[in-house]
């Protein structure tokens, strides 16, 4: 495959991972546990956009908007119904991780019950552009641009707005944040809403770039975790860099695999290798604080 094409594919993959990983990492940072149900939030978002796009026949843009809002709401719902109660019970992060697995099972199989196990596609036009000997679809251009736009919006939110600063405050020191008059529970709602919403949009991107299946989120959750750990758990900027690194590693890695005539089915193993290397060499990740390990 041409180098240009590999670069284009890598940037697209990175753009799909980046929002998902940011969503995962901010929930991780504030609530201190690995939320495995993030995989199914991704899938849920993809199917919500499917309702808008295919069942209602509207443009996928509105589908992505609906995915953001509804998946954000689902994130809040999982917190209200499960995680908040666990916090009140004084349960530790380990129980929350196990509970997140339970939530994931319920969501995934409910999605499979509703839409069936077979793959479905969005109703989108596929115009293709040629640049420097590689090709890119119109959809992929949107994926890249929307990701960059959302990253910029989030950057301003975290640095300039009261909400963003309060979120950082709550994650760094919840007691201090509460003492300075921040309503912690309200901030947590926003964390879930934004984290879930980003997962939802990431799901739409993935669905538009490939297809929709009930395992859509599960297929990429390991890559998302690899991004989060490579970037440093809880690090917004780390996640951004790591997402594109992983995009490049996976696409170039797959190309090397096929050159070596090894099955490209091993694609997920690339994220796994990166995960293991980071854990051995620098468990705190690129931008993580040292004590994170």
């Amino acid at each position, binding site marked *: 495959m041409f180098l240009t094409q590999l670069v284009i594919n890598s940037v697209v993959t990175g753009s799909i991972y980046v929002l998902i990983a940011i969503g995962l990492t901010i929930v991780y940072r504030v609530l201190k546990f*690995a939320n495995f149900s993030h995989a199914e939030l991704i899938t849920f978002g993809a199917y919500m956009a499917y309702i808008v796009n295919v069942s209602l026949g509207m443009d996928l843009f509105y589908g992505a908007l609906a995915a953001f809002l509804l998946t954000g709401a689902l994130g809040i719902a999982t917190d209200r119904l499960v995680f908040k109660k666990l916090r009140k019970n004084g349960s*530790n992060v380990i*129980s929350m*991780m196990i509970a997140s697995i339970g939530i994931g*099972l319920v969501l995934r199989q409910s999605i499979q019950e509703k839409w069936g196990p077979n793959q479905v596609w969005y109703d989108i036009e596929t115009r293709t552009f040629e640049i420097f000997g590689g090709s890119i679809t119109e959809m992929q251009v949107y994926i890249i641009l929307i990701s960059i736009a959302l990253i910029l919006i989030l950057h301003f939110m975290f640095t300039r707005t009261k909400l963003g600063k309060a979120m950082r405050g709550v994650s760094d020191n919840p007691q201090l944040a509460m003492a300075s008059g921040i309503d912690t529970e309200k901030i947590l709602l926003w964390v879930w809403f934004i984290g879930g919403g980003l997962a939802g949009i990431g799901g739409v991107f993935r669905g538009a770039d490939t297809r929709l299946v009930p395992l859509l989120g599960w297929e990429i959750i390991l890559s998302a975790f690899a991004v989060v750990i490579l970037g440093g758990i809880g690090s917004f900027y780390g996640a951004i860099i790591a997402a594109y690194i992983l995009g490049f590693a996976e696409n170039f890695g797959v190309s090397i695999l096929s050159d070596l005539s090894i099955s490209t089915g091993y694609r997920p193993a690339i994220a*796994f290798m990166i995960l*293991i290397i980071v854990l051995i060499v620098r468990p705190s990740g690129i931008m993580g604080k040292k004590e994170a*390990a």
Partner: protein
Amino acid sequence: MLLDYVLDMLVYIGIFAILAISLNLEFGYTRLMNFGKVAFFATGAYTSALLSMTGASFIEGMAAGMLISALLGLLVALPTLRLRADYLAIVTIAFGEILRLFFLNEVWFTNGPMGIRGIPQPLYSVFDNDYMLFYVLLVYTTLIICYLFAERIVNSPFGRVLKAIRDDEEAVQAFGKNTCMFKIKIFIIGSSMASVSGSLFAHYLAFISPDMFYPTVTFSVWTMMVIGGSANNLGVIAGAVLVQVFERGTRFLKDFVVLPIEPSNLRVILIGLLLILFLLYRPDGIIKEEKNRGLL
């Protein structure tokens, strides 16, 4: 027909009870978050199946599976056990998936998605008509050995260190114990034990394929442990009975009643719900750990 059904369920209960005990050693007593239990179960199944296809005996296959699982367990444990609990969870879940991809893609070795058929069953010619009955005995003998072994471990000085690590690792380190070594050892033991149940599984079905080793297997074992009562070996066996009666029951039921939901979906949804409800309302499970405080 009904008797066969009951015996089949008993075999499944026994096999999964062994898995649940092995997870209990790792998580219940030591707080190691192994989300890749299925990897070691699959290793046992595949090693046993592949070796017996080349003429090795059941015992040899099982022993080889235990050895390979122990080595794989060591390999996974080394980079992760000295780190935070959540890293182990992520790495083991990933490891299980990669191993499944290996079984799926290396067709020359494992026959890929078509799976391995005609795995020889131990002493089949001797028992012939009563084979199911024999297999139930075989599984339960193994289960009893595993149970006694696990009880022996947790009540030994070694086991007390494990429980102390779970409750306060820093305090144990302050006493000069190398906690990492203890964690690695119990992880290896748990992995080998999971492999034993994998061997029993492969030889029982006489057929295995990669799609039997999805992560749902791991989480079904977690559900058994959580609802049974983590850190109580009898409790987790009770959990295995409940979840298996329920899983097998819905399979059986669908032949007689029309369910509004696809039974395979319903099964997983209810397992997820059980897991959540127990964590919320009965974190100690059905049977609490003896003389200790609640743990989850």
